[in-house]
Structure formats: structure tokens, C-alpha cells
């Protein structure tokens, strides 16, 4: 293999994590299950990783508290990436205002547990998920009939409308934000106190596992197949009898619900939110997380979300230069791994495809 060939093979993904998955898939059921169990256990112990010799050096976040970074950033980004992946990766709808749903979730908890009522967090959380879902439906119903890029700017506008409204309406706490938000109730030895982030991490990681489990069921169901069809070719899906609008709305609502869930977890952890927590740039960061990991692949979204949240904290030493390096990294990853770090297995994605409708990508071509 010549140097240039090996270079190309590296960038086109021969060393990807999916290889590991392929190798695992060949093993017996019990091997796979125990491997999964070990992974999950190891991830539950993640807050202690920095004290492991070599590994600690890699994962630690100098200058800031690692367990808090896990709860405040990583868990939230992974959840959000999972939700946004449903919208962008599975249904193929470009959403640039996803932070709006995240904000709706956080604000619902804040309003119900502090600003205007004193409901416990455990009750607020499902309400927040529901409210975010309704927000998704309300935004989706008039806008999902729009084509891809129109949807992008409309959703971007939605995110901004939410933030500015929260900033200027006194009932929503305006620019002062809302403090003293309720925390999750203590369960046995798990005490959700201000100074210990670990219980929040256990809660967040468990939530992620549940969401992944539910999404996997969904992906393999009729709904998942419909999303697939819509993303591949919306017109064809419509002709085959798929109610494209209904399923697009479902994707939007489910995505919004997961965003709201992330928001409610965040509000319950930090106990204070203000509109500055939900800037437009965060939406863009969320989208970057999904695409960086590999749009349409749930594992890609998880990895992308974790990386985008963790990297800036890991490289605090770069201070001002972090964001610059992040921008360059985005370009480079897209240039050399356009499908993301962990791409989808099936690459035939009409909507995500090239701007040239009929050159390289479609199999068989016109004959």
C-alpha cells in the first residue's frame, strides 16, 4: 500500500469504531452482552476516571471539575445530540433552532418549581417533556411543509424568539433569570445536593440509556422505516403511501421532547437559568455535534455530543484559542470525513446528499 493510498484509507474510515462493532457482531450473544455490561458499568464509573493512571490524563479537565463537566455539559450534549439526530439524521429535517426546545424544557421546570409554583422536580420533568413536545408540534405544524433550507432559517428564528421572549417577559424571569429551581428528590444513598455532581451524573447517564433504548425500538419500528423512506426520497415515500407530514411531525415532536428532557435535567442540576444559557450559537454547536459524530447514526451522535462538550473543557489551557481550533477542526473533519466520525452504514441519503442531483451518488443512474 503506497503512502497516499494509506492516507486515503485512514480518512475514509478503515480505523473507525464501527469496525469494532463489526468484530463484536461476529461474537456470540453472551460475549456481546457481557461486553455491553462492562462498558455500561465503566461508563457509570466515569466520574472516577481521572484518578486512573493513563486514562486519567486523557480524560481529565484541568481547571474545572470533571464530574460537573460530565453533568453540566457532556450528559446534556449527548442527550441533545440524540434528540437532534432524530430530527436531522433520521428524518432529514435541518433544524438550526434546537436550543429553543432545550430552553422550553428548562424554563418549564424553572417556572413550575420556582418562579410561579413549588412543584417537585419529579413532577415538573414529565410536564417539561410534554410542553417541549407540544412546542415542537406547534412549530412543526405550519413549518414542516417548507423545504429543507427554509425550515433551517425558520427554526433558527424560533430559537431566537424563545430566547428573546424569555429575556424580555417579566413573567419568565426576564434577563435576571430564575434561581432556586428544584433538584431531583434523593433516592436512598443518592443525595442530590449542591456540592456533589455524581448523583446527577448517574441520573443523567441512566436517562441516556433509557433514551437510547427507546430510540432503538423506534428506529426499527414502522416509524423508523417511514423516516428512512422520507429521508431517502420524500416524494417517493409520499407515493408509497407514507403520510410524510405526520411522520415528519413525529420526528420533530420526539426530537423536541428529548431536547426538553435535557433542559429539565440541566435546570434541576444547576438550579439557575437565564436567557444567556440558550444562545443561538448553542444550536449551531448541537448541530455540529450531530454531524461531527455522523448524522443518522445514534452512536455517532453520542460520540459527537460527548466530544463537542468535553473537548473545550479538556483544552482549557488553550483559553482564547479553543474556539478557533474548534472551527478549524470542524472544517478538517468535514473535508476528510464528510460522513462524520462514525458514519451511517447505509450511505444512500438523498436529502443529505450532494447538490448535484444525479452525478455520483445515486446507484444505477438514469438508464
Amino acid at each position, binding site marked *: 500500500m503506497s503512502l497516499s493510498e494509506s492516507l486515503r484509507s485512514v480518512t475514509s474510515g478503515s480505523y473507525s469504531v464501527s469496525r469494532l462493532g463489526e468484530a463484536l457482531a461476529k461474537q456470540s450473544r453472551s460475549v456481546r452482552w457481557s461486553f455491553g455490561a462492562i462498558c455500561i458499568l465503566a461508563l457509570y464509573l466515569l466520574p472516577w476516571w481521572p484518578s486512573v493512571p493513563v486514562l486519567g490524563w486523557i480524560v481529565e479537565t484541568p481547571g474545572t471539575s470533571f464530574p460537573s463537566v460530565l453533568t453540566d455539559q457532556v450528559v446534556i450534549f449527548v442527550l441533545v445530540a440524540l434528540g437532534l439526530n432524530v430530527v436531522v439524521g433520521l428524518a432529514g429535517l435541518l433544524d438550526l433552532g434546537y436550543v429553543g426546545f432545550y430552553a422550553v424544557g428548562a424554563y418549564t421546570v424553572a417556572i413550575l418549581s420556582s418562579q410561579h409554583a413549588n412543584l417537585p422536580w419529579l413532577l415538573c420533568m414529565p410536564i417539561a417533556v410534554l410542553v417541549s413536545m407540544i412546542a415542537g408540534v406547534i412549530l412543526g405544524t405550519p413549518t414542516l411543509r417548507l423545504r429543507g433550507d427554509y425550515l433551517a432559517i425558520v427554526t433558527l428564528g424560533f430559537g431566537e424568539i424563545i430566547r428573546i421572549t424569555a429575556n424580555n417577559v417579566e413573567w419568565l424571569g426576564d434577563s435576571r433569570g430564575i434561581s432556586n429551581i428544584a433538584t431531583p428528590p434523593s433516592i436512598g444513598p443518592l443525595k442530590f445536593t449542591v456540592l456533589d455532581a455524581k448523583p446527577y451524573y448517574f441520573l443523567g447517564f441512566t436517562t441516556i440509556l433509557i433514551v437510547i433504548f427507546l430510540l432503538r425500538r423506534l428506529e426499527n419500528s414502522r416509524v423508523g422505516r417511514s423516516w428512512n423512506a422520507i429521508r431517502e426520497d420524500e416524494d417517493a415515500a409520499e407515493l408509497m403511501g407514507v403520510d410524510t407530514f405526520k411522520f415528519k411531525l413525529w420526528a420533530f415532536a420526539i426530537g423536541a421532547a428529548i431536547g426538553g428532557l435535557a433542559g429539565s435535567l440541566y435546570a434541576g442540576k444547576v438550579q439557575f437559568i437565564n436567557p444567556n444559557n440558550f444562545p443561538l450559537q448553542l444550536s449551531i454547536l448541537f448541530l455540529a455535534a450531530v454531524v461531527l459524530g455522523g448524522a443518522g447514526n445514534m452512536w455517532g451522535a453520542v460520540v459527537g455530543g460527548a466530544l463537542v462538550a468535553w473537548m473545550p473543557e479538556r483544552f482549557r489551557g488553550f483559553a482564547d484559542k479553543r474556539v478557533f481550533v474548534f472551527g478549524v477542526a470542524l472544517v478538517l473533519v468535514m473535508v476528510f470525513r464528510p460522513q462524520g466520525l462514525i458514519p451511517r452504514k447505509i450511505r444512500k441519503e438523498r436529502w443529505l446528499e450532494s447538490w448535484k442531483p444525479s452525478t455520483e451518488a445515486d446507484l*444505477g443512474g438514469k*438508464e
Partner: protein
Amino acid sequence: MMLEVQDLRVAYGKIEALKGISFTVDEGEIVTLVGANGAGKTTTMRTISGLRNVVGGSVTFEGKDITQIPSHERVKLGICQSPEGRGIFPGMTVRENLDMGTYTRKDHKSSAKDADFARVLELFPRLEERITQLGGTLSGGEQQMLAIGRALMSRPRLLLLDEPSMGLAPKLIAQIFNIITEINKQGTTVLLVEQNASQALRRAHRGYVLETGHVVKTGLGNDLLNDPAVRAAYLGGH
């Protein structure tokens, strides 16, 4: 020999659409490629125009290997195509569409261009009536005329016509083929791809029969027309 295609192989992903096609076109000829859907006719045309990358083989035009040069350079050498589906620019007027044919020509304001313009309008009087209309508003037949006329505006030495009869009424088809013959008589070499094999073979000097990415038969147009196997496969068996 004007165009020589040798052992051409083209793939879409892992699926090979052309599995080694060879044929030639001599100056002044009309050569046709016939075959069923999926035989590789349009892929061949697109490859000659440079829209597809080849996996193997070569395309030689007037002694020059053009396999690797970009499409717009090929137009300068004298190859122009009227593509399948006509490729009319819907937002441009008929005149602007025709002007696009002269895109690579250096003699912009010259009388030679005006002469070509007059010649095309003479061949297709319908276009003159529609000259200020938008391309997207033309009927199928008119669009086909426009596509051929536009290709002619580049003064090609080799004109590639991909399915010029597709979607047209029988009367119009005859008219289009008459014009193709006329163009050829005026000195332009034509490579024609058709599903309407009987018309194509009747007009062509020579023909090639394509089947799933291979050339399976070749001969003079009339010989192929009378070949029982070809008749059975492509001409409805009569």
C-alpha cells in the same frame, strides 16, 4: 477515425454500468447505439461528454486521448451533446438557451455566430416563433428542437444525441429524425442513442447493439434492421 471508444468501463459505486465497451465513429457518419433500458447507452454518452469518471478504458477523439480531460474542455475540441431529458435551462429564454451553445466559442460578436443562429432557426422554424419565451414554457417537441439547436450552436464536429425521440408524438419523431439526417448531410458527424431502434437504424450508417454494459452486435444500419435477432429483441419481432 473521429471517435474511438476502447474497452470503456464505468461504475456506479460497486455496480458496473459499462463492462468494457468498444466502438468507433468515422467522420461524416451517423452511428447509433441501440439497446434496452439499463444497457448503458446514456452512461456511454455521459462518459464521452466527461460527466462520468471511468474505471478503465479510453476515449480518443481525433487522435487525442480525452479520457481524463474535464467536460468543458471537450466542448472546445468539438464534442457537444443534446442530453437525455433535453436539459433546457427553464429560466432562460429560447434565445439565451441558444446563446449558451456558443459559450466556449471565441467569435462572440462575429457574423459566423449570426450565421449559425440563422441556420438553426432555419432548421427549426418553431424556435423563431418562441424566441423570447422561457425555456421552461416550451412543449416537449420544442424543447427537443431547442436542445439540438443549442448543441449545434457550438459548431460541433461530433454531435451526441441522447434519446431525441423520447416522449414525442410519432409525427414529431419523424420530423426530428429528418432534421438529424439533414444536419448530418450538412457535414456534422452524429452519434445517436435511441430506444426507438427501428427509426434510428433506418437513419444510421452503422449501429451497435448494447446489452447490460456490453456491445453484443454491430453492423451497418440496414443489416441490423434486418437481423432477425435484433428484430426480435428491439423491434417488436416483425
